[in-house]
């Protein structure tokens, strides 16, 4: 048995026999299990509701009876963002962005079904997620069990006796880090097994999902590792265990409470997003008058071009329905307006997201939070990914409806399409982005987390080297 493992084994024994650790681990372990269970049930229920709603929406679409295709386009259809099974760990922005969108003619709509809208004011302060426990409470437990790891040994006098045995300081540090990690594993490993089981039971875990889950585990291990390193560094550096505890609690408050708040305010100040009212009003105005080189379609010019193209004098003689052509032109004009405004809005959100990731240099929580949401499929970028897929589907749907109207009827004719047309519209098939796409989006957070992990280890080594024993 190596010296490091021997030290680790003693640390583990010491911690496990410590009532403070047992109580802390029991409380946080229970919260973790409860949050995982609650999250799993919530995702299971949400998926069941979405499946039912999707089936109902499809049924309504296919059984809407005979009507003009453009009326069917206005009748519209709902698209539902599928929830990744891993979202039971981290709900991310889903409660605020919503998970369904109504796809209709002339309009790119906002998402609906936002749980945050339905939450009572009390619920806003009481949401318990596994991500919250892992990001906030586990670091607190690390601090509470390890703040005295070095400072306490020095105060009690055991550090002198330890070093007098000839054990190296780095060996001591590594042994303590390993022992604390082992104690933490008693809490985290059962939770991870529970989570993996939930994932398997939840919904046919795919290889991609398993890869996301594995990376998620690595991300949280790196986060905990950074906190263990940081705690040992402060414990070795601080003049007393009390000073170490106060310093570490200060770091915990900055990491978990101050930095996220500052990130929100700073990102909003640097990259302000319009209010929902402003955004809607801008689109309405631009749809009415156009903007820059995006102008409303010229119905007269389209008519003349068609007449010329087909060598006829009257629209009634055209082999196509002029309404279908102009409606599609109107759609394409609207699409450009939506692309402009939604593009700017999403870009703003992503710039805000980058500010959060950059500020992770001051708080590792911001990095791990971004990675956690990304891997759970609940971040802004994946919301945008689905929104783009839904919008593409809407445009294809409108093109099909307007095309059917244009090609299968004449101008002025009362044309009605039937079930065959509705059934020919394929359902929205959405594939969540691959892991590489997620990690590519989160490269900055990965770098920040790595920086914290390595930085904390280096700080711990330097602090332990300088620890005075006499």
């Amino acid at each position, binding site marked *: 048995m190596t010296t490091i493992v021997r030290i680790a084994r003693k640390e583990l024994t010491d911690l496990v026999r410590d009532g403070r650790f047992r109580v802390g681990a029991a409380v946080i372990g229970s919260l973790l299990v409860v949050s995982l269970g609650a999250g799993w049930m919530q995702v299971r229920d949400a998926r069941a509701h979405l499946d039912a709603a999707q089936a109902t929406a499809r049924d309504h679409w296919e059984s809407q009876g005979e009507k003009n295709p453009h009326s069917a386009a206005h009748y519209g259809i709902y698209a539902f963002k599928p929830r990744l099974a891993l979202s039971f760990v981290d709900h991310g922005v889903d409660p605020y962005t919503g998970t369904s969108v109504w796809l209709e003619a002339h309009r790119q709509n906002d998402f609906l079904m936002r749980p945050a809208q339905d939450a009572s004011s009390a619920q806003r302060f009481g949401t318990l997620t596994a991500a919250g426990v892992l990001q906030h409470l586990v670091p607190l437990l690390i601090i509470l069990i390890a703040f005295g790891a070095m400072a306490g040994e020095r105060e009690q006098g*055991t550090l002198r*006796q330890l070093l007098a045995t000839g054990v190296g300081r780095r060996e001591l540090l590594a042994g303590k880090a390993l022992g604390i990690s082992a104690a933490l594993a008693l809490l985290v490993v059962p939770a991870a097994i529970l989570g993996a089981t939930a994932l398997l039971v939840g919904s046919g875990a795919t290889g991609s999902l398993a890869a996301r889950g594995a990376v998620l585990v690595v991300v949280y291990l790196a986060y905990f590792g950074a906190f263990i390193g940081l705690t040992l560094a402060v414990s070795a550096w601080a003049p007393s265990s009390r000073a170490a505890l106060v310093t570490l609690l200060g770091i915990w408050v900055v990491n978990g409470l101050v930095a996220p708040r500052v990130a929100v305010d700073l990102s909003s100040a640097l990259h302000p997003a319009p209010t929902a009212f402003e955004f809607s009003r801008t689109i309405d105005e631009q749809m009415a008058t156009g903007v820059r080189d995006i102008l409303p379609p010229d119905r007269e010019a389209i008519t003349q071009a068609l007449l010329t193209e087909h060598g006829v004098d009257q629209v009634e003689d055209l082999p196509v329905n002029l309404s279908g052509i102009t409606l599609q032109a109107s759609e394409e004009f609207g699409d450009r307006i939506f692309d402009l405004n939604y593009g700017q809005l999403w870009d703003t959100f992503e710039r805000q997201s980058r500010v959060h990731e950059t500020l992770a240099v001051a708080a590792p929580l911001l990095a791990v939070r971004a990675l956690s949401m990304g891997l759970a499929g609940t971040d802004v970028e994946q919301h945008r990914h689905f929104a783009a897929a839904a919008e593409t589907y809407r445009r294809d749907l409108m093109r099909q409806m307007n095309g059917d109207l244009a090609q299968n009827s004449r101008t002025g004719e009362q044309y009605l399409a039937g079930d065959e047309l509705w059934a020919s519209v394929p359902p929205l098939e959405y594939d969540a982005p691959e892991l590489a796409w997620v990690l590519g989006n989160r490269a900055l957070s990965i770098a920040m987390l790595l920086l914290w992990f390595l930085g904390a280890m280096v700080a711990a080594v330097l602090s332990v080297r300088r620890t005075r024993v006499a």
Partner: protein
Amino acid sequence: MHTMTDESRETVAKPEARADGAVLEARGLGKAYGDTRALVDLDLRVERGEVYCLLGPNGAGKTTTINLFLGFIAPTDGQAFVASLDVATHDRETKRHLAYIPEQVMLYGNLTGLENLDYFAALSGKHPGPGRLREILEEAGLQSDAVERRVSGYSKGMRQKVGIAIAIAKEADALLLDEPTSGLDPKASNEFSALLGRLRDRGVAILMATHDLFRAKETGTRVGIMREGRLVSEMATSEIGHADLERVYLERMGDS
């Protein structure tokens, strides 16, 4: 059984102490904190089978001397040698030859006496096994029913016994003691002195800082009196009686 774990321990051969030389030696050793000189030009030799007692009031430089031999502080002048190795340049190797018992032996309260001994012995590179560890604890005077009890319930005397058991298990060439009998009742002090005697008979070089003139005379083979960081007097205990030692001590302290 694999006993050496650290790479440096694997590769650096254990330097043997000179059979006829000093296990502990200070040459012009000094330590200053700014303008305050805690230890001045100390020359000292402690050989195998010798118990050298450093006497002196608080601030005389006794603990500083021990800290310098342990490498816990760096000297500002001179050198400290353990087994002919300079502590400043062979920090970890010299510790392999040393055992250390402070005024209050601090142990891990959540571990039993046996577990504490096993831990410290293992860190010293010794793995005697549970049976031998029990024997060592009993040799150190710890009651057998206390061996498996958590140390949080131990008295100071019991902790000191575990401390000396750690020193025995380490099989060190030299033992450094810093006021080891302070706070012990007379019976425990006598037992402690007897243990030191047995270690001395095994050839261990012992350097003990103490206030206790009686204990120094009873246990020591030589006595050094320190004052304000200087070794002001040195004598063999066989050549001096209790009363003489007290008189010399008081003279050196300027009290008579």
